[in-house]
C-alpha cells in the first residue's frame, strides 16, 4: 500500500483549511473552527445516540 502523504509544494497548490496555517498555528485555527457552535447538551447527547443507531451499535 502506498504511503499516504499530503500534497506537497506542487506548482500552484494552496493548502486549504487548517493546513494553510503554519504548524505552530494549527491548534488555534482548529479550535477557532468550533467557536461558532452554541448548543444545548441535549443536542450533543442526541448526536451520540443517533450515531450508535446509525452503526447498529445497541450496547
Amino acid at each position: 500500500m502506498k504511503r499516504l502523504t499530503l500534497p506537497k509544494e506542487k506548482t500552484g497548490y494552496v493548502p486549504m483549511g487548517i493546513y494553510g496555517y503554519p504548524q505552530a498555528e494549527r491548534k488555534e485555527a482548529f479550535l477557532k473552527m468550533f467557536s461558532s457552535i452554541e448548543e444545548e447538551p441535549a443536542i450533543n447527547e442526541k448526536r451520540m445516540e443517533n450515531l450508535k443507531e446509525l452503526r447498529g451499535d445497541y450496547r
Partner: protein
Amino acid sequence: MNQASIFTLEKRGNAYKDFDSFPSDLYVDTSAWIAAYNGSLSYNPVKGFMSDCLNNNTTLYHSEMILSEGVHVNEKAYYDQYAKDYLSQARENGKVNQKKLKKLITCAHPEMFLASMMQSMSILQGSMELIHF
C-alpha cells in the same frame, strides 16, 4: 497500518496532559468528531488532543463516510429535539403521523438543517485535504 496502534480516546478527564510525543498520523472516525463537538464551552479532551496533535505535526485522516454520517446524526439530533414540541399536534387517532410531524418541524425551523449542517461540515472540511492514492 501494520505499525499502527489503535486506542480509544477518553471523553472525560485529563487523560492526555502528560503526553510528550504525538503520532505522526491519526485516523479520526465519526464518533471522535461527535465527541469533539460536545461541550464546546468547557474543556473537551477529545478536541484538545486532536488540536495538540495538529500543533505537533500530526496529519489527521478521515474517511469520506464521515461527511454523510455527520450530516445524518446532526440533522436527526435537531429533528428529534424539536419533535417533542410538535408530537401532540401531529397525533391522529392516537398515532403520530410522521409526515405531518416532519412538515410541522421543517415549517417552524426552516433554518435548522442548513445551519447545523453547515457548522459541522465546515469544521470537517476545514481539517481535511482530499488525498488520492
